[in-house]
């Protein structure tokens, strides 16, 4: 229990900084909307004539009303997702391997508590971090949308989108934990998770370029949930949801296994 409290205390400053960055980005995105809104209905006619492939690259759907803030938000969602995944990936990779990095593993792991319990408490602390981060994202999004239209009408869809964000964050948290368990030091763990984040992001771009690559979508968590679909059609791809859940469970369970087996170097 103490472990959770200590983890949260140590993570407080980084959490504030990451949340601050998120608030800044959401604000920057939504404030820019005001300039865009002035171009009016003509933009919609223009967008209607774009071939589908270009729409998919920019994340625009077939009958979107681009003068609406919420539509804008769903397009920007991919960008917010990028920051969130970096945060959660790093969190996962570092939360246990930082003990080795900071040379405190000799202190922590000789305490009369099983390694499993330690890892569990750390994961709980990480989840708490993610929840706070998502809460901040949620509230900031609502406030920024409120500037242009009554947020009460979209609370539901924004909540669903943030839930999707949380799911993708969990996937990267799990991957980070797994890599932290496998790698001998924190430097390798962070490098590997960075590689995976960049790789899956680029894969998402490549998939949107070439329709035939849709079958590789399972490789990149960025594609599992589509913000447009969720916000406007309240639709979630069930296969992807199960894939995400499966991946999260697999990663977390394997990380337990690896941390149990590993020689913790100090």
């Amino acid at each position: 229990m103490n472990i959770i409290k200590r983890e949260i205390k140590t993570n407080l400053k980084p959490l504030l900084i990451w949340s601050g960055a998120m608030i800044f980005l959401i604000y920057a995105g939504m404030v820019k909307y005001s300039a865009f809104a002035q171009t009016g209905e003509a933009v919609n006619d223009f967008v209607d004539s774009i071939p589908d492939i270009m729409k998919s690259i920019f994340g625009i759907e077939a009958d979107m009303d681009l003068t609406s803030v919420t539509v804008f938000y769903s397009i920007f969602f991919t960008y917010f997702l990028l920051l969130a995944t970096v945060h959660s990936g790093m969190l996962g990779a570092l939360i246990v391997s930082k003990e080795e990095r900071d040379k405190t593993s000799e202190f922590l792991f000789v305490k009369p508590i099983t390694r499993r319990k330690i890892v569990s408490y750390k994961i709980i602390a990480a989840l708490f971090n993610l929840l706070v981060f998502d809460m901040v994202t949620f509230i900031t999004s609502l406030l920024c949308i409120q500037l242009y239209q009554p947020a009460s009408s979209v609370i539901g869809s924004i909540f669903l989108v943030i839930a999707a964000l949380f799911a993708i964050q969990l996937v990267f948290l799990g991957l980070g934990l797994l890599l932290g368990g496998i790698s001998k030091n924190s430097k390798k763990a962070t490098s590997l998770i960075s590689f995976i984040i960049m790789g899956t992001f680029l894969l998402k771009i490549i998939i949107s370029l070439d329709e035939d690559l849709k079958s590789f979508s399972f490789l990149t968590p960025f594609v599992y949930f589509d913000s447009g679909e969720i916000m406007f059609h309240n639709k979630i791809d069930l296969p992807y949801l199960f894939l995400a859940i499966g991946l999260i469970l697999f990663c977390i369970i394997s990380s337990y296994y690896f941390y149990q087996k590993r020689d913790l170097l100090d």
Partner: protein
Amino acid sequence: MNQILQEIKMSYRSFISYTLGLVVVYIVFLSFFGSFRKNAAMLEEVLRNFPPEFKAAFGFSDVDLSQLSGYLSFLFGYIVLIGAIYAMKLGTTLLSEEVRSKTADFLLTKPVTRTTIVTGKLITILFFIGLQNLIFYTVSLFSTMVILNEDTLPLWLFTCMCLSILLVQLFFVGIGMLFAAIFKKIKSVMPIALGVVFVFYILEMINASIMDPKLAYVTPFSYFKGSRILENNGLSVNFILIDLCLFVLFICISYFVYNKKDIDSV
């Protein structure tokens, strides 16, 4: 000289990984040009009929993605991103390495001024960045000619885009060294490197949807954007000056701060 050789020995592995990554990503994207060309040609037809204000509002400007130059400007956006991450990582790692590996009292008690030490690190950084750009330029030029069998490769534009990688990297080297100089101890480099680079990158992506001329000054990814290179048929001298001035400014501040800094040896 000794110091430079030692620094190179310590960092050559990540240099190889990132340079390889740059080249591989470039080649992969290039190989998709063929299939992308067909879809983009359709878009060009449509865009031809629209007034420039709408195109600008949407961030399309005059980028013709079905042509090699347009596609290159699109793909270089991601190449620059990877380069920027490497530059930030390099800048931050090199200056904070001593504190992290507890070798500060070894290096800093040697009969050389701190300025000389920082200069040595800076030379190493510039060496790696320069070499990476050189390798990338030659390999990508060669592979473009081989893969696409194009005799119509716009060499000047291509060179400008490759230069843009170098210039953006200089910016992030500056920021990286500044962070490393200011913070007492950086326990983990990657979260900071990825976080900072992605915040700047997301700002640029947000700006791509709404062309705000003022926002372009905030993020280095906007200085040498592919579409801007195509528009001006070259790099904007204004932005080159701003970029270099910022680089020199950051480096000078780093020198100053590092000289005055209390560096912990344990």
